[in-house]
């Protein structure tokens, strides 16, 4: 039950923060800029402010609704007041934009916008009614959120068996916490990636309009890019791939705009986008390097000219942009350096195939990736869900518009150079460069969700390339591209209609049940065999402490319950003594394990380590089996 007071705090904090973000957007843009650019900046500033506030207030140990709301009032109000000389109302620009849309009489665009509205609404409904369904959420994206909220702060290290939580970048978890802390309930925990999806659309339109594409046409292709199935599937999750991709593309766009215009405020905007990007993955510095490298490689003369025009201003803006990026995403690296002596903290198994992860394996990983590419982009290996196992989720957009854009990239850049239009060359080269960079060291069954920036950039590049090649809207490729774009939007919206990673026949029961029953254990496909999780979710009253067999990927989110009041206690592997051999070993609880359970008053012990692996049976008279994998320890509560 979410109280009115909680809703009031939630709405107040977000409204004030949005007002502050709008002031930042006005300060970083000019009155003549198109509306979509201002919307992108407002969205980025909103998420940036929320990120900094949760981190700052959390590190200060005051991560509770009232202190956080007070911090939001101070930050939003302070920015609104401090930047008031640049502020301008949003409505006139919005009205102008809506009038231009209504006046263009474009039926194809109108249908695309209707599909967008349906998609946005259906994603919001899913976020509200269904729990997170991707297993990464259960092991390392969301448990920190529950732990932070319970502790009322963000400590340097969190207890638990999933070690990566303590050295990974948790920028998305900060946003998940922002949308959870006021309500005291994770019902909107998946909202941040949905907001990133919304930001993706004006990002595309702004880039295309800057590349000389008419606004209405730009909006259609911006939508086609946002409807790449991988983006749609990620938009309702607590993952970070969509945020990573959108912030990367926005950062590249602002860097490119700086090179073209020499406006130092573009650098600050790029710093904001790439700073957020840094906070989402340990590999994000690669994104920043590729973004900067692409602009340096393709715009050296313009960068030099911008520098010569105002060297002092450009230098200060560069330093300020670096500072902004560091504040937004640098904390995790600084903490890793301080705690573990290296920026990346621990070692992540990024390069997956057969455990190869060294430089010597680079060539074979690249070969494997290139060999798989066509099969992956055909998407024929599996159904589409947010995990994107064995498929890319790049959709028909990339297979048709994207491939065409890649084929046209070089001719468009050459032909358009005379007219000052190069077919969105910088974002496209940056996306291709980043994909190839990942291809050289990273191979996994699910990797293509990380590369979703590639189809988006390619789809966006098509109208810009057509523009550079002087193909008008009425030309054959112009008309066909619009038709294909609409067909792809509709096809993608239909293809992601199923609730991926769910147990289909339980969706209705889950939605129709009381709010507290809308938990992963009742609807997640991953939990269909986990009797222990379902028993705990449905039949155990209160918020008991649950001990679990500690594993590097243990799922613990479900133990916190719908109100995030439960407690998860990791039993370290060294205390799990397995006896017997062959296919059926059993666990003999050690005295230390029993002592831990007594100390934590954990009456329940779950012997299923992570996912749908078979639980290890416990052979001890003090442990009573309730359902397979779940034991009641008599010694814990006496």
């Amino acid at each position, binding site marked *: 039950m979410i109280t009115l007071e909680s809703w009031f705090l939630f709405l107040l904090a977000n409204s004030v923060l949005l007002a502050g973000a709008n002031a930042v957007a006005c300060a970083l843009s000019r009155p003549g800029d198109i509306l979509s650019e201002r919307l992108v900046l407002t969205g980025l500033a909103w998420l940036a402010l929320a990120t900094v506030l949760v981190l700052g207030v959390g590190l200060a140990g005051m991560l509770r609704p009232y202190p956080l709301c007070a911090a939001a009032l101070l930050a939003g109000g302070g920015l609104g007041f401090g930047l008031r000389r640049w502020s301008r109302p949003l409505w006139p620009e919005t009205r102008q934009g809506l009038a231009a849309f209504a006046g263009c009489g474009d039926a194809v665009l109108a249908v695309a916008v209707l599909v967008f509205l349906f998609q946005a609404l259906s994603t919001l409904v899913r976020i509200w009614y269904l729990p997170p369904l991707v297993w990464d959420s259960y092991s390392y994206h969301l448990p920190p959120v529950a732990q932070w909220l319970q502790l009322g702060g963000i400590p340097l290290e969190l207890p638990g068996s999933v070690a990566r939580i303590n050295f990974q970048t948790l920028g998305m978890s900060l946003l998940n916490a922002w949308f959870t802390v006021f309500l005291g309930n994770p019902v909107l925990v998946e909202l941040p990636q949905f907001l990133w999806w919304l930001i993706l659309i004006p990002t595309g339109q702004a880039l295309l309009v800057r590349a000389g594409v008419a606004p209405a046409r730009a909006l259609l292709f911006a939508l086609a890019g946002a409807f790449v199935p991988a983006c749609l599937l990620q938009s309702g999750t607590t993952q970070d791939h969509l945020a990573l991709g959108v912030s990367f593309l926005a950062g590249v766009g602002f860097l490119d705009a700086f090179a073209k215009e020499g406006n130092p405020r573009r650098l600050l905007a790029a710093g904001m986008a790439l700073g957020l990007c840094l906070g989402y993955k340990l590999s994000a510095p690669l994104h920043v390097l590729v973004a900067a490298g692409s602009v340096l490689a393709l715009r050296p003369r313009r960068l030099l000219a911008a520098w010569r025009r105002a060297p002092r201003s450009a230098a200060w803006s560069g330093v300020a942009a670096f500072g902004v990026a560091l504040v937004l995403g640098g904390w995790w690296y600084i903490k890793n350096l301080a705690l573990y002596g290296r920026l990346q903290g621990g070692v992540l198994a990024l390069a997956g195939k057969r455990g190869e992860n060294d430089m010597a394996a680079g060539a074979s990983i690249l070969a494997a990736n290139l060999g798989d590419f066509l099969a992956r982009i*055909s*998407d*024929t290996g599996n*159904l*589409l869900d947010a995990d994107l196992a064995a498929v890319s989720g790049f*959709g*028909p957009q990339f*297979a*048709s*518009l994207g491939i*065409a854009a890649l084929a*046209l990239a070089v001719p468009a850049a050459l032909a358009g150079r005379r007219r000052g239009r190069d077919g969105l060359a910088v974002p496209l080269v940056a996306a291709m460069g980043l994909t190839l960079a990942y291809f050289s060291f990273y191979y996994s069954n699910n990797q293509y969700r990380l590369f979703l920036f590639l189809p988006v950039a390619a789809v966006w590049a098509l109208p810009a390339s057509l523009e550079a090649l002087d193909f008008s809207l009425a*030309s*054959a*490729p112009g008309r*066909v*591209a619009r*038709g*294909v774009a609409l*067909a*792809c939007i509709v*096809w993608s919206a*239909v*293809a*992601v*209609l*199923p*609730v991926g990673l769910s*147990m*289909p*026949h*339980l*969706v*209705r*029961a889950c939605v129709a*049940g009381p709010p507290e*029953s809308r938990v992963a254990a*009742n609807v997640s496909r991953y939990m*269909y*065999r986990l*009797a222990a999780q*379902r*028993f705990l979710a*449905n*039949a*155990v*009253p*209160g*918020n*008991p*402490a649950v001990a679990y067999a500690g594993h590097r990927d243990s799922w613990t989110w479900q133990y916190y319950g719908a109100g995030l*009041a439960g407690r998860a206690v990791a039993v370290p592997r060294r205390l799990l003594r397995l006896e017997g051999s062959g296919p059926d070993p059993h666990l003999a609880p050690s005295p230390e394990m029993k002592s831990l359970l007594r100390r934590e008053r954990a*009456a329940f012990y779950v012997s299923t380590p992570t996912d749908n692996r078979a639980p290890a049976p416990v052979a001890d008279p003090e442990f*009573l089996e*309730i*359902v*397979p994998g779940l034991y*009641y320890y*008599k010694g814990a*509560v006496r």
Partner: protein
Amino acid sequence: MKRLLGSLLAVGMAVLAAVYMAANPDKPVWALKFWVTYAGSEAPDTVVLGQGAERVQAYLAPTMCPGPGGREMHFVHAPELARSLALSSSAQVELSGRAVIAEVHSDRGVPYLILGNSTVYVLEQDGLGERAELAAFWRKHTAASERGGQ
């Protein structure tokens, strides 16, 4: 020349989109099936066979969070059945050859049945060894949660 290239480009895009969609007929079909066949219909009833089946069948109330029909674990909300079993002389009822009933108490004070194991838990009935201990635990746990949780 430009017109020819434009036509080739247009045909190429349309063909590629069509080929992709033709290669992936399962996606839109699954979308339809998902909502019409599965999520759009009632969850399947539990399949109950064997000794005691008629009695169990008769008491199965609308499911709270059922598992895949007859194969996986089911949670069924059936307080009447629990009472009936507690009164019966036989403590063991086999369901589906391997399913089990367990009566526990939820925070709303309503017993639930849990199917999917190989024995019957009748928690309120004495003389069942471990089951009686479990019953004691549930009473204690329920009382603790009513006082505000452990």
